[in-house]
């Protein structure tokens, strides 16, 4: 049975970027900040306060799991975070919603689809 995530949508930009950064691999807080800056090409930067405020909410909603410390890390104060299956589903639903928004925007703005080379 397919779960309905539309009630959680739309996501805030911070939540979307955090989920998206954790979609590839498990990261600690500082790595999430760097990944968000990389994904947005430096146009969107998360501060620690905003990052952990959103992480707190995502953990409470069980979209993100806290893994704790990892052996072999340089800084023992770092904790790692993982995207849960629930969070992955929410991210997929948000991505589909955004794709629809982009498609509609292209139609309205008469922007041609990029041709394949």
């Amino acid at each position: 049975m397919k779960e309905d995530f539309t009630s959680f949508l739309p996501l805030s930009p911070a939540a979307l970027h955090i989920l998206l950064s954790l979609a590839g691999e498990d990261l600690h807080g500082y790595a999430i900040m760097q990944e968000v800056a990389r994904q947005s090409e430096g146009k969107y930067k998360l501060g620690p306060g905003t990052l952990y405020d959103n992480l707190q909410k995502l953990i409470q909603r069980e979209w993100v799991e806290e893994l704790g410390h990892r052996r072999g890390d340089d800084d023992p104060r770092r904790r790692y975070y993982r995207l849960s299956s629930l969070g992955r589903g929410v991210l997929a639903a948000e991505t589909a919603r955004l794709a629809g928004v982009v498609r509609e925007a292209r139609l309205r703005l008469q922007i041609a689809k990029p041709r394949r080379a």
Partner: protein
Amino acid sequence: MIRSLYRCALRLHPPAFRKRFADEMDSIFDQADGNPAALKLLLDALLSLSRQWTLRPEFWHDASPSAAPTPVFDGVPSFSSISPFRPRSAALLNGLALSLAVFCLTCFAIRYSWIHVLHVRIPEVQFERPSGIPPNPRTSGMSPMMEKPIAPPPPVYKAPSVATVPATPALPQIPPPVETVSRLRSARNSGHTNAVKPQSNLPISKWSAETIGEAEIPLESYEGTYVVDSPAKITIVIATERDSLMMSISRQPRLGLTPMSKTKFTVEGLQNCWIEFTPGDGAASPRMRELQLSCNGKRYVAHRQP
């Protein structure tokens, strides 16, 4: 400096947030390059602080039970405190709001109270009746509760033509008692008009003037025409009529003068009005050189015309 401020801001976060993320935020601060980045992180921490305390009440309390300190039995005696009580943050905020409300109500009540205090009626200052004026025989027999507040008309001063008054400079001037007036009157009737000396135990010695001393003051010394120069020219005539001093202002009907002291007289028929004479320099026969008419708080100085 910035680092300590940053750590201080982290410590002020709600306990649950602080336990969970403070170490990581501190490690992120270590990654900052230079003061501008550190200042940005400090600003971010301050914003986070306000956000956590204002918008995230659901995260104020730590959901996970904190690890209770376990006593270590390694031979060293350990001490444990009995359930240290710490009020919840929500309770503290509620208490703060309640305290502010009580404070505001108290301030309002104080202000309201002050309005009523300001409306307290202050009794008017009234002049005391001179003790030399005998009480009204119509009201003297009444009880104080039955006595009417209307002041009785002061009697006319019928002083002898010449009176000798011993001087006591150190004593203040007080109005002459009734006995003094009657004694002087009896002395006049018996023909001793020139050497009436009151007994030493009588209060008459108290109403001597410092500037006059023991000089005899005939009533003629008060007589004369006194002129007020300002604010308007007013002529005051002091005359003797049947051994009494009379005063007329600008040809108006004469008014009797009642003695309060040797130089001070009240004006019959006028409330809160009195006249004070200033004797001249002549010691043997002092003649008044000016008078001050005080009436209802206003004061007029009149100089005697030659």
